[in-house]
């Protein structure tokens, strides 16, 4: 194999690559390599095709569906050393980056040029741009600014057999042929290895306001959010945390979150100062009309950042309560939020399971997280059954089994139920055309 140093093969080196951020999934790879450019990626893929060795693309391994978990005997292709921010173009409002750069590194680099890259997944400090594109990650600002897909203008991809291709450009409009690059966004490392991306940037918003509303009942919080959307207000952030999650987050962050309520909603509006003032006033009004117990306005930017960072820590903080955290990613039309929350609460109650719920409420994206212990097999079985019920209800309400974390291994068994046979067949055929030998991330998403 023509890989640059180091090539990791010892047990001590490989064990830490056997998993990602997903609970209860683990498999040792055969080796780990760190390509430094597209050329090296290409050579590795050609070798893999000759030798029939599975290649697992990997960023920082913060994924929550097992997308970068190895298959037996595979080579993990870790892209974190391909991490330069190549060009911030102030005239065209774009940035060109290598895909191993972290989301935060990109946000900081463009921030220095007074520009703004909005997608901010909870994991942004460590997740790579490659992982973000491959999962089409969302974030706390998805409601107003959209998800990663909305910012990808071009990309360099190494196809499974080793061809290097560039798709897209700095033009705002482009309808030359199929929009192929879109197929690679959210492809979870199954169709190609993304080595460079050209991202769209926007000017930094002039003003922003962050607020925290507390509720005595979760359903009231959900209703409030549906009402804000129905009132045609699109703030940049509408995040939600339930009682269990609030307590865990406060234990970590110590920022004085209210502990005596059933739910909090974190709201942020940004843009022109006058619009910000008006939107925040209207949101406060709606919160009060829907029975919130209090509304607190962040006094300055420091507090606003603290609140957002605390929210980002929610998922990991839940591990304070139980060693295994099985996280869901269901998303429903926003009119159905209260119904979905009610359903989750009932399932947890009847099945006697502990659950913490948080999520990107404004996107209709919920993360009910079961707090359990993977060694307690009886309880794990109950969790599995509860998941099935939640998935069924989601689909019944016109929702999706995954809003942003992807299918990977964790949601694979639910995908046929979501997509139906025809869609699945077209996807299979597309994958076979690009990767006839099946070397790239085999077994992920579907077989």
């Amino acid at each position, binding site marked *: 194999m023509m890989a640059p140093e180091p090539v*990791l093969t010892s047990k001590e080196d490989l064990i*830490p690559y056997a998993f*990602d951020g997903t609970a209860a999934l683990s498999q040792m790879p055969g080796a780990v390599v760190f390509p430094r450019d597209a050329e090296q990626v290409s050579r590795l893929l050609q070798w893999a095709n000759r030798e029939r060795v599975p290649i697992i693309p990997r960023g920082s391994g913060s994924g929550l569906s097992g997308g970068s978990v190895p298959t037996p005997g595979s080579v993990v292709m870790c892209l974190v050393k391909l991490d330069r921010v190549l060009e911030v173009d102030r005239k065209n409002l774009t940035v060109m980056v290598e895909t191993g750069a972290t989301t935060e590194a990109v946000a900081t680099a463009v921030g220095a040029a007074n520009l703004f890259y909005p997608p901010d997944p909870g994991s942004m400090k*460590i997740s790579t741009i490659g992982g973000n594109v491959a999962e089409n990650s969302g974030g706390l600002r998805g409601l107003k600014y959209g998800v990663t897909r909305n910012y990808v203008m071009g990309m360099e991809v190494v196809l499974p057999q080793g061809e290097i291709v560039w798709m897209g450009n700095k033009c705002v409009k482009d309808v030359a042929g199929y929009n192929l690059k879109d197929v690679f966004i959210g492809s979870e490392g199954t169709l190609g290895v993304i080595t460079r991306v050209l991202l769209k940037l926007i000017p930094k918003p002039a003003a922003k306001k962050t607020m925290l509303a507390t509720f005595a009942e979760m359903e009231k919080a959900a209703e409030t959010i549906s009402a804000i959307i129905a009132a045609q207000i699109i703030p940049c952030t509408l995040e939600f945390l339930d009682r269990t999650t609030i307590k865990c987050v406060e234990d*970590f962050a110590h920022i004085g979150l209210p502990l005596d309520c059933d739910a909090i909603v974190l709201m942020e509006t940004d843009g022109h100062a006058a619009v910000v003032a008006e939107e925040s006033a209207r949101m406060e009004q709606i919160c009060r009309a829907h029975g919130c117990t209090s509304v607190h306005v962040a006094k300055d930017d420091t507090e606003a950042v603290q609140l957002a960072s605390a929210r980002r820590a929610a998922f*990991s*903080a839940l591990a304070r309560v139980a060693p295994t*955290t099985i996280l869901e990613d269901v998303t429903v039309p926003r009119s159905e939020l209260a119904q979905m929350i009610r359903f989750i609460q009932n399932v947890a109650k009847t099945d006697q399971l502990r659950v913490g719920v948080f999520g990107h409420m404004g996107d209709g994206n919920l993360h009910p997280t079961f707090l359990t212990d993977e060694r307690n097999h009886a309880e794990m079985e109950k969790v599995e059954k509860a998941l099935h019920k939640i998935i069924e209800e989601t689909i019944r309400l016109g929702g999706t089994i995954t809003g942003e974390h992807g299918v990977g291994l964790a949601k694979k068994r639910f995908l046929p139920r979501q997509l139906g046979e025809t869609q699945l067949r077209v996807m299979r055929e597309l994958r076979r055309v690009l990767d006839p030998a099946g070397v790239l991330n085999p077994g992920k998403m579907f077989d």
Partner: protein
Amino acid sequence: MDSTNTSAVSRLKGLDYRVLQQCMHCGLCLPVCPTYNDTKMERNSPRGRISLARAIADGRLDLTPEYAREMYFCLGCLACTSACPAGVNYAEIFEHARAAAEEARLLNSPLRRLIRWFTVKWLFMDLRRLLFVGRLLRFYQAIGLQRLIRGSGVMKLFPKRLQELEAMAPDIPAKFSAQLIAPVTPAQGTRRYRVAMLTGCAQDLIFSEVNRDTVEVLARNGCEVYTPPRQSCCGSLHGHNGEYALAQELARRNIDQFPPDQFDAIISNAGGCGSHLKHYAQLLEHDPKYHDRAHQWDAKLKDVHEWLAFIGLAPIKDLQAPKQKVTYHESCHLCHGQKITAQPRQLLKAIPGLDFVELPESNWCCGSAGIYNITQPEMAGKLLVRKMEHIKATGASVVANGNSGCLLQLVNGAKQTHQPTRVAHPMTLLAEAYRRADKAAGKS
């Protein structure tokens, strides 16, 4: 696996449910880990190290020398514990992992054995030995032998590592703590508290003036300070280097010497020591004779910044105070180990004439990390260069820091990079400010 190896493995197994499984491998600790930042390889990250410990506990990996080396490559800076939302107790994993490595005698080269025996088991077990070596060093420096030897080029005959070590040898002050500080220093004004001050070992050897300044500041703030001349090491060096039994012995000695019920507070002025000193209860968990007192001890143990901020610093009035631009480098074990970040800044800002500037990456390890700069010079060197660059960029003439190991590392850093920056403990800056204020008041 032989029997020592089995018992060492059981040390990690004992941790399993409580701490190992707590890590849900989200990776949020990766960006703050200096070793991961440098190599970008998972095994050099907190998440990776925890997964290896867990693999050993689960029986998927033997306790191997490779693993032991990894745990000695870890700085033990605990930045990961500040970043971890899940509350993983990495400090405990770290100490048990190193202890397991020592028990299984995994890294057994004769040179390593000698160095460890000399430092961990002999030198730092008895203050008299340490002071004796200190005197020897002082003598060596005072008679100009150091200059002579350095100038003669004799050192060049020795292996590079030894040359570097020689260059790192600290300047030993003319007097040790016991010669500078009375066993009991009365409070100035009304006595509000009775406290004990731990003079430390390395601290005492190299920074005895810092101890004197600390006692002075405490006394000026209504504390009667009890400072017996012969004290023991806190045991952190032992705890962090896999010598659990010795660490326990030192903990017992300290509890005996400073019965916690006799003081309002037991004060440490070194971040690294304080962080360890606050966990005697955990260390003596299975010692029925000491367990209760160890709990009391932990509750009474206060870092000096924490204590002064808590009791309220007596104001310093000085209109003529000279202007000085000061930045602050945080000791890992003060900010990550003890979560004390606001208080030292607050105290520094109370100094008249002082212009406080934040240091970028102030809570990023400087590479000192106990004896890490001796055992892992390459990584330590990189971290020091990074630190010195940031300090330079602030334009500060003084960098303040509350831990002897870091102070020493920074002094060396300034020397190496020819930076004129002064390195000082906040207590020294405070004591100077009080003295200046006295003088100014006396004159007017």
